[in-house]
């Protein structure tokens, strides 16, 4: 693979053999997520939420472009197919929040894992992970707000359970790829770490509403 710049990765090492297809997967995931956010950037339930989603769309697109720079476009590796629930249009605000809470967080866990084994990626991941903190704060709080809402809470939990199964299968494929090339890479699989985060989120969204604000 010839360089279009000094940072286009050469697939010599184990990290790059697993890193390149995973970066291709992350690029596709971020592009799709950006599309979802873009479709909701003027349709949120409050102006502030729409503004936040617009910023998130821009950031996802920017992050995808930064990550795409690692790939050789001519012979780039194929990534792992996205879950159908992510490909489908987010028709309601509940759909969007479920995607943001479950899928955006899953992407971030994968990025952090791959960045940990691949220095070329870790140099680019710092700013992305910083931006993603705000995405996660936004998604998690909205997930909890909607989950505690008597009218939409049951719908959110039902939709989240459906998406969770698909995202979990997607993460399982990623973990398998990681383990094939880097056995013993991490003490815990990505899906386990993500699963704990989602368990906590589901529990908070199902608990009695607090009285703040």
């Amino acid at each position, binding site marked *: 693979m010839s360089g279009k710049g000094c940072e286009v990765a050469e697939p010599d090492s184990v990290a790059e053999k697993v890193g390149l297809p995973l970066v291709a997967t992350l690029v596709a995931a971020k592009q799709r997520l950006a599309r979802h956010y873009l479709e909701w950037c003027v349709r949120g*339930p*409050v102006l*502030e*939420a729409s*503004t*936040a989603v*617009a*910023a*998130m769309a821009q950031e996802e697109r920017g992050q995808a472009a930064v990550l795409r720079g690692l790939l050789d476009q001519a012979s780039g590796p194929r990534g792992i197919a996205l879950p159908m629930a992510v490909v489908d249009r987010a028709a309601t*605000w*509940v759909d969007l929040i479920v995607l943001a809470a479950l899928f955006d967080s899953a992407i971030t866990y994968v990025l952090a894992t791959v960045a940990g084994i691949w220095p070329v990626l870790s140099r680019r991941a710092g700013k992305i992970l910083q931006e993603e903190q*705000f995405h996660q*704060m*936004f998604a*998690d*709080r*909205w997930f909890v*707000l*909607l989950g505690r*809402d008597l009218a*939409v809470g049951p719908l959110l939990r039902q939709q989240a359970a459906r998406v969770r199964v698909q995202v979990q299968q997607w993460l399982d494929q990623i973990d398998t790829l990681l383990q094939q090339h880097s056995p013993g890479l991490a003490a815990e699989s990505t899906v386990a770490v993500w699963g704990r985060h989602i368990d906590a989120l589901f529990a908070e969204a199902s608990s009695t509403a607090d*009285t*703040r*604000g």
Partner: protein
Amino acid sequence: MRPDRSRLYHVFARREVTEPLRQVGTVHAPDETLAAVYAATTYDEEQWLDMRIVPADCLMVVYDRTHIRTGNP
């Protein structure tokens, strides 16, 4: 789907250590986490050094002469 218990937050920011924090705007949010996200995404036109939020109802009145300007008692 609009959160019911929305609260007004003032947003403060500065560009340099030597600058005082100044108010750059307000956001409505149901809690401080979303208020922080909304502040960061709404007032991102500058490269702020730091940004703070404070609930509007936490500001303490020293004195209030708005009635003189508005004519209201």
